[in-house]
């Protein structure tokens, strides 16, 4: 969706004014949000994307109504299974059926039915994210977390699923609270209370919000784009021509590019939501400082990993059914999470399984280490290596990040052969190949960024605090200066969005 566009940038202040004119009436503000979301979805997506979200919402609305009207537990469960089944089928169809469109049309033609299936089976904008929110909503209604008086009206539900801020790429904003899913102040921030409120909303931390938006733009527009064109794309397209260090920088660079791209967008929408008095869950919490994979998934795309935890891993039994079964549950959950990241094909599922295998190894390691008498005596079960002191912790972070980078190489490639080429060049191209012109400074910058990362992750807060010392009239000018710098540094053109395809 075109949140990073001139039209949106100029239109937002107008919407902002209209929205706050109705400050005493949050219910009218909700209608405005719904209308704006539908308009934007129709404009940037298509009529079909709009129809898809409306039909989906109406179905979820009717199903929850029927579910809550059912007297028997069995009937309620049946409604839940129907709803979740339909949502999953709908998602699976749009994500994977495109591959079968050609053969299916041929089959129809052979039967003498000449149906034109051209252009019909593309994933409608936003479908993934509102499907996740829809399933969460159905489950919350089934469990009684949302009772009849607190159920959302059709218009509010439409706004909840189609909200222009979250519909393209999350964060997955659930109606009810979930563990680990918190706002920028570490407070719970479920959607239902915020939609249902009759208390007038107020702008939340406007200077911080603007700084967050600026940081998001810098990450997504400038850093991610620069890394792609200078460090990643040319090397991945032609690995055999590059020095091992170039390949190493490109492998690191791709993960960093993905992180800047996705977390930048998340910052942007979280900041905009604050300006509208809404609190969205924070989706990234310095994932590249994680000292093991478990920690990584607590910090990367948090709204997805908690969703997978609550709606796939835990319903399968989680860790309650013994050690071996826990590991199987983990592998299945990660494999499915991986498969969701891509369309038809094996590489994304493989990526998920690699992460699953990493987590399983981590659990096995913890279990083995628990056999050491002294360690068990200390009463702790996890994080053995990271607790051995700073050097061991730095090493754990390094190894974790390298594993993450290693797995992400599967994202941009077409077949396994290319991965082999990349890694063979990494190992062999040490001698008598020139190092590329940007590799050394980039590697140094990455190291510096990484060392300063514990401080840098608080950059929006730091900037907002610093701005507070300036006179109020000067603040917009300083923010404008920051914005101009980002635009000047960014590669020209409006960036595409890597994660919107998922």
């Amino acid at each position: 969706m075109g949140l990073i566009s001139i039209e949106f940038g100029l239109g937002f202040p107008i919407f902002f004014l209209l929205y706050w004119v109705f400050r005493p009436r949050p219910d009218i503000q909700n209608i405005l949000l719904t209308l704006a979301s539908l308009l934007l979805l129709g404009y940037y997506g298509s009529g079909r994307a709009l129809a898809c979200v409306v039909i989906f919402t109406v179905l979820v609305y009717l199903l929850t109504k029927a579910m809550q009207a059912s007297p028997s537990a069995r009937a309620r469960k049946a409604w839940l299974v129907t709803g979740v089944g339909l949502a999953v089928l709908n998602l699976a169809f749009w994500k994977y059926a495109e591959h079968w469109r050609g053969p299916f049309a041929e089959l129809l033609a052979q039967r003498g039915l000449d149906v034109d299936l051209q252009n019909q089976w593309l994933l409608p904008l936003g479908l993934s994210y509102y499907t996740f929110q829809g399933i969460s909503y159905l489950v919350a209604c089934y469990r009684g977390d949302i009772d009849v008086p607190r159920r959302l009206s059709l218009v509010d539900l439409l706004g909840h699923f189609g909200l222009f801020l979250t519909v393209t790429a999350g964060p997955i904003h659930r109606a009810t609270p979930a563990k680990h899913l918190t706002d920028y102040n570490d407070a719970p921030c479920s959607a239902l209370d915020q939609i249902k409120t009759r208390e007038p909303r107020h702008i939340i931390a406007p200077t911080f919000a603007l700084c967050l938006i600026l940081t998001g733009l810098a990450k997504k527009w400038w850093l991610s784009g620069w890394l792609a064109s200078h460090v990643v794309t040319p090397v991945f397209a032609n690995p055999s021509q590059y020095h091992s260090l170039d390949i190493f920088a490109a492998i690191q660079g791709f993960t960093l590019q993905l992180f800047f791209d996705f977390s930048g967008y998340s910052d942007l929408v979280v900041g905009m939501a604050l300006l509208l008095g809404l609190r969205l869950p924070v989706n990234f919490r310095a994932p590249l400082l994680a000292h093991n994979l478990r920690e990584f998934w607590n910090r990367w795309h948090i709204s997805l990993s908690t969703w997978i935890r609550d709606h796939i891993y835990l319903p399968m039994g989680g860790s309650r059914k013994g050690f071996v079964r826990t590991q199987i549950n983990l592998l299945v959950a990660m494999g499915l999470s991986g498969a969701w990241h891509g369309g038809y094909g094996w590489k994304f599922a493989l990526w998920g399984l690699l992460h699953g295998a990493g987590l399983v190894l981590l659990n096995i390691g913890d279990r083995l280490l628990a056999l050491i008498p002294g360690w068990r005596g200390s009463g702790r079960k996890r994080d053995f290596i990271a607790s051995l002191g700073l050097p061991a912790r730095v090493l754990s972070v390094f190894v974790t990040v390298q594993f993450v980078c290693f797995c992400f190489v599967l994202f941009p490639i077409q077949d396994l052969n290319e991965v082999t080429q990349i890694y063979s060049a990494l190992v062999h191209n040490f001698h008598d190949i020139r190092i590329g012109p940007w590799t050394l400074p980039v590697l140094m910058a990455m190291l510096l960024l990484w060392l300063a990362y514990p401080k840098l992750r608080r950059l929006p807060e730091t900037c907002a605090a610093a701005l507070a010392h300036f006179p109020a009239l000067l603040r917009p000018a300083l923010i404008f200066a920051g914005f101009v710098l980002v635009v000047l540094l960014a590669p020209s053109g409006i960036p595409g969005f890597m994660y919107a395809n998922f």
Partner: protein
Amino acid sequence: MASPRTPSLSTLSTLVSLVFLALASLWLMQSPIGIYYQQTYHRVYPLAVLEESEIWKSGQQIWAGLNGAIDDASKSLDADSVKLTDDANQKFVLTEDFYRREHQAKLEEENQRRAAAELLARQKQEADTNRLAAEARQRQEQAEQEAAQDARSRALALEAQQRAEEQRRANYLIIAPPSKVFMAGDSLMQGIAPYLLRTLKTQYGIEGIDLSKQSTGLSYPSSFNWPETISRTILKDPGIRLLVIMLGPNDPWDMPDPAIKGGKFLRFKTPEWETVYRQRIAGIIQSNAAHGVSTLWIGAPGMKASKLDGQMIWLMQIVQDEVEKQGAVFVDTRKLLPGDNVGYSDSIILDGKNTKMRSGDGIHFSVAGQKYLAQQILDKLHLPPPVSAQ
């Protein structure tokens, strides 16, 4: 973190900040926003009227100054980075042997270049002689034909003419090191070029230059001027012998009339539009020819959206006609990626396997599609026997 001020004051001051940010951006970035507006809405930018005010116009100059400063800073960073890397390469990475080989390769390249230049000169001389002879022959034949009015000899003459044309075409796309290939185009070309570069370099030892840039075309030279970029690049690098160019999907719009600045836009699909567009194509090919550079023009493939597809069909028929009229070669990718009705298709059968050729947006190529098209383009070229470079 919440503001200590009252909510309404905080709302008002945020609104003022947002409006200030919007207006200040419109002022400072008026040139890029104006170009964006023209390219997107194909109308005169409404705020262009403000350019009469010097105060408003000062934004343009400041923006240009800032851009210049950033360019200078990045150039100096570039230079520092290159120096650092060179030092490191010299001290830690490259051996004597590497430099010796590089020196030899350079000498060899120089020799090849000289030989190629001599060959080119010889070929040109031969071609001239042949042409003169052919002309004389033709005149003679014509005379004979006129005299005899013999249908058979007329056919023979036509055949000879066709053979000569085929010969010219065959020679037209010959490329061998040290000649270089220059790639230009939009985001479609950006996808294909890396694979072309890789194969040319690794299999044939031919260097390539890729300047393709997203969102570019021939309609809006104020946004990106391809004719000028191409001629400048060719002047700067005389090693370039072939231009592979792919443009079109960014072009099917009304465009500014180059004859009247700030005047009405030329409407797409009108004869006036067509004339200007043809002139730009012809200009590129003729300027290339003047520098001994051949042009291989890659057409746009079928598009998923039927409106864009229809526009591309119209535009490509113009492009093909003009390219061939100018004696260059056109590759019709629509026929290379045929759909069921020769329109758009996501996938084609390749080696018996249904392979997805296009990306989700129905415009760009998938990686498989990029590789496939790169190979199709290579097949059009007359390349030396492959060498195995590392």
